[in-house]
């Protein structure tokens, strides 16, 4: 009979998604994906502070698994173009 291994990357990745949704950062838009044995954490976030908090939580949940991140901070600049829908 197989037993539950809490270190399985699949479960860790889902635990990270759950933590990101339930902790103060409330981030549901970040992708957490498996590429072979590596966990990728990527997507756009609202602020540099949000990015740092997500990376801190990811470290707590994913270490010592191998993981990589590519979190980008969304721009709050005014638009430099418009779309004509006529």
């Amino acid at each position, binding site marked *: 009979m197989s037993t539950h291994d809490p270190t399985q990357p699949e479960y860790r990745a889902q635990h990270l998604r759950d933590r990101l949704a339930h902790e103060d950062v*409330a981030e549901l*838009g970040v992708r957490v994906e498996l590429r072979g044995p590596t966990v990728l954490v990527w997507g756009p*976030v*609202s602020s540099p502070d949000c990015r740092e908090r997500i990376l801190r939580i990811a470290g707590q949940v994913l270490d010592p698994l191998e993981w990589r991140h590519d979190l980008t901070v*969304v721009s*709050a600049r*005014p638009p430099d173009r*418009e779309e*004509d*829908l006529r």
Partner: protein
Amino acid sequence: MIRVAAVGDIHLAPGAEGTLRPAFETLGDHADLLLLAGDLTRHGTPQEAAVVAGEVAGLPVPVVAVLGNHDHHADRPQEVTAVLAAAGVTVLEGQAVVLDLDGTTVGVAGAKGFGGGYAGRCGSDFGEPEMKAFMRHSRTCADGLRRALGDLAQAGTGLRIALTHYSPVPDTLAGEPPEIHPFLGSYLLAEAIDEVGADLAVHGHAHLGTEHGITAGGVRVRNVAMPVIDRAYAVYHLTPRPRPEEPPP
């Protein structure tokens, strides 16, 4: 020509004061109204709503909003709505507002919407009470949008815009995992939009989606989630067109 500014998923909370205000101060140069497509806060608390209110209070254009799922998380949507309304924001849920912008009447019909999925790949109002409640909420939201659009059709506004948080079409979800599409929107919203007709449909919610889509009936759909448009707001130029005769109510 009417210039419509729109953004969703700004996810503000204490500590983020002033993030969007500098860009919003430029709205008078770019737009005639601002639409907020839900998820204005992180957890839906009045304190977070106050941060949103501070960003949009006293802007030179009218502001019309719907709430999103984040704005419901604390189970205090009425308080969030009240805080925004006190700052001059018109918050819609199954309702419409008519704005007179330099002699052109612009109608905005708003509803949060909900999940459920898209035609051929959606849930059914069947089985456990929880599943039935899920699908019924989706239908209730879409019915509210349909009624609000119908009110605008009766009023004969020059432009008609559908504003939701959840997506009416899967087109603008491209980039999101297909497995979660049933949590990102519902075809019932598109069906309501096509039934009454609209010049534009605006939504948020899908951070990893794409901006451009269209309903089966030919209504342009734009996903204005801030992570998608990657700026403080997007701007769309619309021109009122003569309409074919409206169907009888």
